[in-house]
């Protein structure tokens, strides 16, 4: 099953998405695309893995870390499918990061690697934009780089864990205006999903809706206002986002 959250007639609705990718309300009514706004499909803590693909570590001239390099985002940053992300004026490099997002399904504390997959509720697609100009230190992805308003598209929906046979063998792809720019596979994760859940749940209690952005493979590129950026994870979803300028953004707030 696929579950999503939308804004429809100024109301937040929990909906499902059928096999034809149509949004279905709890009353069974099909809503036409364009009549609603996609919201982030979950609410919770937002963990992001830095340098969790060996090839991306090489791209940044880093040795892969010996324990997960986790940072947090604040929820101000999340937006849903088919929304707009603004590029600050006067920056040189803003890039997407296509990521498989693990959504926690039940409370988890001190979970073993062996049991960890039982705590996965589902999966979705995340795009973890970064403004590299603001990166003062690679090991310190400051919130100014990573937790900006509109900078973390997520969705369109959550696919139930049981519907993804092998989350460690999924192709990730990013397209800018239809041109393939990034490609990787979750089989190359440095720390895989059970390892990440065990690691985090040793530190703290995870709760349903918490999100783990598992990292991005190599293939980053600059994005400019007007670009349509599509991030997809095989079998999980296709997440579309449009870049706008800061001045356009300022008119919307």
């Amino acid at each position, binding site marked *: 099953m696929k579950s999503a959250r939308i804004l429809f007639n100024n109301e937040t609705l929990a909906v499902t998405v059928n096999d034809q990718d149509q949004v279905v309300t709890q009353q069974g009514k099909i809503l036409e695309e364009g009549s609603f706004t996609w919201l982030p499909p979950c609410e919770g*803590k937002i*963990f992001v893995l*830095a340098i969790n693909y060996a090839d991306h570590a090489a791209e940044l001239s880093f040795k892969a870390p010996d324990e997960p*390099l*986790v*940072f*947090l*985002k*604040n*929820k*101000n*940053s999340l937006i849903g499918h088919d929304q707009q992300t603004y590029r600050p004026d006067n920056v040189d490099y803003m890039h997407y990061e296509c990521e498989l997002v693990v959504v926690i399904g039940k409370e988890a*504390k001190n979970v073993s690697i062996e049991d960890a997959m039982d705590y996965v509720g589902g999966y979705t697609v995340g795009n973890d934009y970064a403004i590299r100009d*603001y990166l*003062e*230190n690679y*090991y*310190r*992805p*400051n*919130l*100014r780089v990573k*937790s*900006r*308003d509109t900078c973390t598209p997520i969705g369109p929906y959550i696919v139930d864990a049981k519907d993804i046979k092998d989350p460690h063998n999924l192709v990730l792809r990013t397209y800018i205006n239809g041109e393939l720019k990034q490609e990787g596979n979750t089989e190359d994760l440095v720390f895989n999903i059970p390892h990440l859940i065990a690691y985090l749940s040793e*530190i*703290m*209690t995870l*709760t349903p809706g918490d999100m783990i952005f598992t990292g991005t493979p190599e293939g980053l590129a600059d994005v400019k206002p007007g670009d349509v950026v599509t991030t997809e994870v095989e079998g999980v979803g296709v997440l579309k986002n449009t870049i706008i300028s800061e001045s356009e953004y300022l008119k919307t*707030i």
Partner: protein
Amino acid sequence: MLTTFGKKKMFHYRQKESNEVVSKTANASFEIKLDDTILPPTSGNVIGVALNNKALAKSLEKAFNEKPHVQPPKTPVLHIKTDNTHIGYGKNIKLPSDKGAVFAGPSLGIVIGKKATRVDASNALDFVAGFTVVNEVSLAETSFYRPAVKAKCRDTFCPIGPWTVDKSAVSTPNKLSIKTFINDALVHETNTDQLIYSVEEIISYISSFMTLEAGDIIIAGTPERTADLAINPGDSVMIDIEGVGRLVNPVEQE
């Protein structure tokens, strides 16, 4: 006090009543019964400003000019205290075993009153509801440049409360004495005049790229975690901020 009748209530707090969260107000702090039903005063996001203390920054001056830092941070370094860390007045701080020393982190908490996007420092206080006391508990801060999730985001590592005091009751937020007591002995004193970035500058900076919502709390800045601030199972730690309140939490082994 009859004279306050009809005026804005000065204290805002939350309490658990038969499994429901109830928001309440009071004219005076003595009207609030501080029992185990008290919750953190809001349920918003909690964002900390690291390194926002003059003595702490000075102590790191040399290290900041060497590898791997190379240079001191140009902008305030922020961190997040996740929801699993938030606990109210009187709740136990749980220390993990074998993770080394744990330190209290006395700080003024700035409680946001309304949605704030790209706010100027000059009118930043218009977006503040009031102030609270935060104990930003942490394992040793061995590294300020690395994401410190494992040091800062353990369950119960962020007591907040007991209430939000209305900003109108706090005339000088940038000059408030902060005292930390462990088992009733005064162990540490600081003041919000030791912040590098003022309350107004912090709000302006954060809101320049992160929209703050009503109920969000900003931890203005914690001092250097010296041995005086180390906490151990069996301790009771109290942080007292002039004109804001006193936050007390017992400490136990996890």
